């Protein structure tokens, strides 16, 4: 602190004043010094930091550049120069800040000391004013204090409330009190073709009035024909005036929406930028690519799954609602199971790898958000079949005691093929209800269901009928019959409650009695088929890979009813609408019907 030598002659008040001035001066100087220094340090820190950051990135870029031009001496020289510059500035700065801090500390100290002494010098004896006793003052003070306490308490409470409101957790705590999910009624579903093989996945059309003759070459009986941007063996689905498809290439995974009336492509959306989606496409079978799975819709959104494990939902206008990756499926031909739906749940049969890998599971996602609602492990190796939804009636369930009263329609079951079990799951909870050991080998055909009985057939095992009202392992108790003729390897069977049909890839169509499993008749079309047979009114439709559709009577004895040509190869299953058939060829999407 600056001193003023005080000579005794000066009277104390004089001396005091000079001291005071000195103190003030020092305080001002020190204060200004500190402020300026602090500001300078902050500015310098920010500036040089940003600068170094830039230099560092430049250095990194140069190093990358050097990889392409390894011989470029000039480049090397620049790198070295930059490198040195960087490190110099790094150390210069750290040293500068270090000294700066101590200086600042000293400055502030001096400032405080001088200021305090100034205050001390200025202090005068207090001169309290005359006290006028105010009655009840203490009481009033106490009251205000109480209110102050209460106020602060309230403020804290509000702050806490704010915290509670702002903080949310997405850790799967049981979602209680969520608004009731909306889903289409059975009638709506029946009117449309919402998934692979139509309502319930049974391959049965609600309409009998479908055309029986057309010719893709001449174009008669063809309402419209539209080229599909990317091919894939996934089948079309339809809802109202919309038709949905998927396609894939090495680069793209796409969902398409067509106008059912005109066939015009309304929108196409790529499934890209999905977190967790594998950098490199998993291997798939040739020709199948990455979109073998048929999409599904609930009239509000359309859902698609690809062999990458990507699941994506769009609304009907084509805007993405949600998308997630389920983890790349370990499947040597590529995941091919199509999507199923029950109420607001999107059901995914996600069978992978080998049984002892314990990776296979049945997953139900909330269709609105994509969150997992339930997940059930399946001890099966990879399969390519699609689950079906069976409306098992009250009565049948009553026997097995599965009726859960609080459920609106109890006992809706999801039935899925596996190796070696055919399993029934409670659709609401995913709990496995029953299993029957009746399958084996590589399982592509999906099950079908009629009147409380599930039918399945697969090459390498049997055609089997299993009652769905069992619980636990029902292999011994609920298997109605087994048969071994004409077992399919790709195409799914077909059942109407009285008869069951199975179609081999070689084009052999076998008809069984649904009650006994007795073979009633068989017909070898001598064509390759990968499209599953369908039942329309009293006709069974079989479409060959060449695109020829054969009509057979759905009766106990074989009656052929002619055929029709698409004029283009076909590996997909048709969708049946009121008076129309929508079917996907190798390159085009056809709508067959009367003009």
């Amino acid at each position, binding site marked *: 602190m600056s001193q003023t030598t005080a000579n005794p002659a000066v009277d104390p008040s004089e001396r005091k004043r000079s001291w005071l001035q000195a103190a003030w001066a020092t305080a001002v100087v020190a204060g200004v010094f500190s402020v300026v220094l602090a500001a300078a340090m902050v500015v310098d820190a920010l500036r040089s930091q940003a600068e170094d950051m830039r230099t560092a990135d430049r250095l990194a870029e140069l190093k990358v550049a050097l990889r392409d031009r390894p011989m470029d001496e000039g480049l090397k020289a620049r790198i070295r120069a930059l490198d040195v510059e960087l490190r110099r500035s790094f150390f210069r700065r750290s040293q500068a800040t270090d000294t700066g801090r101590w200086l600042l500390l000293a400055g502030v100290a001096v400032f405080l000391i001088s200021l305090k002494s100034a205050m001390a010098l200025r202090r005068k004896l207090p001169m309290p004013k005359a006290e006028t006793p105010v009655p009840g003052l203490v009481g009033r003070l106490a009251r205000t204090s109480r209110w102050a306490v209460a106020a602060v308490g309230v403020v804290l409470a509000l*702050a806490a409330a*704010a915290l509670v409101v702002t903080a949310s957790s997405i850790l799967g705590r049981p979602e209680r009190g969520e608004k009731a999910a909306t889903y289409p009624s059975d009638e709506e579903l029946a009117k449309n073709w919402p998934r692979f093989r139509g309502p319930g996945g049974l391959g049965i059309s609600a309409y009998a009035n479908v055309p029986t003759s057309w010719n893709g070459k001449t174009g008669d009986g063809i309402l419209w024909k539209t080229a599909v941007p990317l091919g894939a063996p996934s089948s079309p689905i339809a809802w109202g005036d919309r038709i949905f498809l998927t396609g894939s290439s090495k680069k793209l995974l796409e969902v398409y929406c067509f106008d059912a009336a005109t066939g015009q492509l309304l929108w196409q959306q790529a499934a890209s930028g999905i977190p967790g989606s594998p950098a490199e496409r998993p291997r798939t079978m040739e020709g199948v690519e990455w979109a073998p799975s048929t999409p599904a819709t609930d009239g509000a959104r359309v859902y698609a799954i690809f062999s990458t494990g990507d699941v994506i939902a769009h609304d009907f206008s084509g805007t993405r609602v949600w998308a997630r990756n389920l983890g790349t499926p370990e499947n040597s031909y590529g995941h091919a199971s199509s999507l199923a739906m029950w109420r607001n749940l999107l059901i995914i049969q996600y069978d992978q790898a080998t049984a002892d890998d314990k990776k296979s599971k049945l997953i139900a996602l909330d269709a609105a958000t994509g969150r997992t609602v339930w997940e059930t492990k399946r001890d099966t190796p990879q399969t390519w079949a699609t689950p079906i939804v069976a409306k098992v009636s009250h009565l049948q369930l009553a026997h097995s005691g599965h009726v859960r009263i609080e459920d609106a329609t109890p006992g809706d079951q999801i039935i899925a093929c596996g190796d070696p079990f055919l399993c029934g799951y409670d659709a609401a909870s995913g709990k496995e209800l029953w299993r029957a050991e009746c399958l084996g080998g590589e399982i592509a055909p999906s099950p079908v269901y009629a009147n409380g009985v599930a039918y399945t057939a697969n090459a390498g095992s049997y055609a089997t009928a299993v009652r769905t009202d069992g619980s636990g392992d029902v292999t011994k108790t609920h298997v109605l019959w087994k048969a071994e003729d004409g077992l399919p390897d790709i195409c799914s069977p077909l059942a109407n409650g009285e008869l069951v049909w199975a179609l081999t890839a070689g084009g052999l169509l076998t008809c069984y009695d649904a009650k006994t499993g007795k073979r009633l008749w068989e017909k070898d079309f001598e064509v390759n088929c990968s499209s599953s047979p369908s039942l329309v009114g009293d006709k069974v439709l079989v479409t060959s890979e060449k695109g020829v559709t054969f009509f057979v009577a759905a009766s106990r004895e074989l009656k052929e009813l002619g055929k029709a040509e698409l004029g283009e190869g076909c590996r997909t299953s048709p969708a049946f609408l009121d008076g129309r058939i929508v079917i996907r060829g190798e390159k085009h999407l056809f709508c067959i019907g009367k003009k």
Partner: protein
Amino acid sequence: MKHSRFQIPDSRLAGILAACLLAAAGCSEEKGSGLGKDFSYDLTELRKVEPHLIGYDEAGTISVPLKEVRGLAVDAKDRVFVAGDDVVAVFDREGKREAEIKAGSASRCLAVAADGTLYVGMKDHVEAYSLKGDRKVVWESLGEKALITSIVVGEGGVFVADAGNRVVVRYDLAGKQLGLIGRKDEARDIPGFVVPSPHLDLAVGRDGLLWVVNPGRHKLQAFTADGDLEASWGKASAGIEGFSGCCNPTDIAVLPDGRFVTAEKGIPRVKVYSAEGVFECVVAAPDRFGKDAVGLDLAVDSLGRVLVLDPQAKKVRVFVRRKRMDG
């Protein structure tokens, strides 16, 4: 004045709350040190592989129900042998579990002779077993520095790679030591093996020569049974055609037509080189394995399938040649 007095504490409170939130947000959101590119190590680019370079498909996997798996071998009948824990698990060519042979101690590597004798490498010695699983003989130890990482059976006898002593030991089938191969020796201009990490792999080429990885020099070197250096190839590069990092490849195998299969760590990838050492194609890209996959032991069966031991997944991954390269 009064008013401002009121403000201070509340703003302080707000400050605390804000700080809490910031802290909570801060520690979850930001990524890295924030020091810039130059301060972080990034291999993601180098881990990518051009899809068209991939010439193999993973046809399937064999899950090995062991706690730790270390060695892989395939016999003439294409049976798959996996050394792990203190056993040798045997699978048929389809991957069905056939047998489990109990070994004396932790088994690290193994080889099967034509006569069906199973040579199992422990840390410092070799044990011979019959396929029934009964132990025939225990060879003498190579000392406490020894770390046996690979065994092969060739015309010249049984060759045992000792990473600890950085040498290959040649035995006859009975376990009599016949000589050392690969010791540093200017006279025979043998540079000696550089083995920074516990990986020193062997393979017998179709030419009958003994091929030894010299990981520290990023080379494969061929020796005659009596230890003359015949051939050598390989170059260090993070690029697809070379061997990446400090010490690669870690494992090799020879295809029926004499071409080489190599496995690397750091950038875990399996590749095929021609008999002359020219890069041909990729069997498995890094994304097939975990980030820290190491010790991908290799074997090749009579069908030319490439078997890769994935110690992290505890699986044998079976790769088959693609029909179309671009698939």
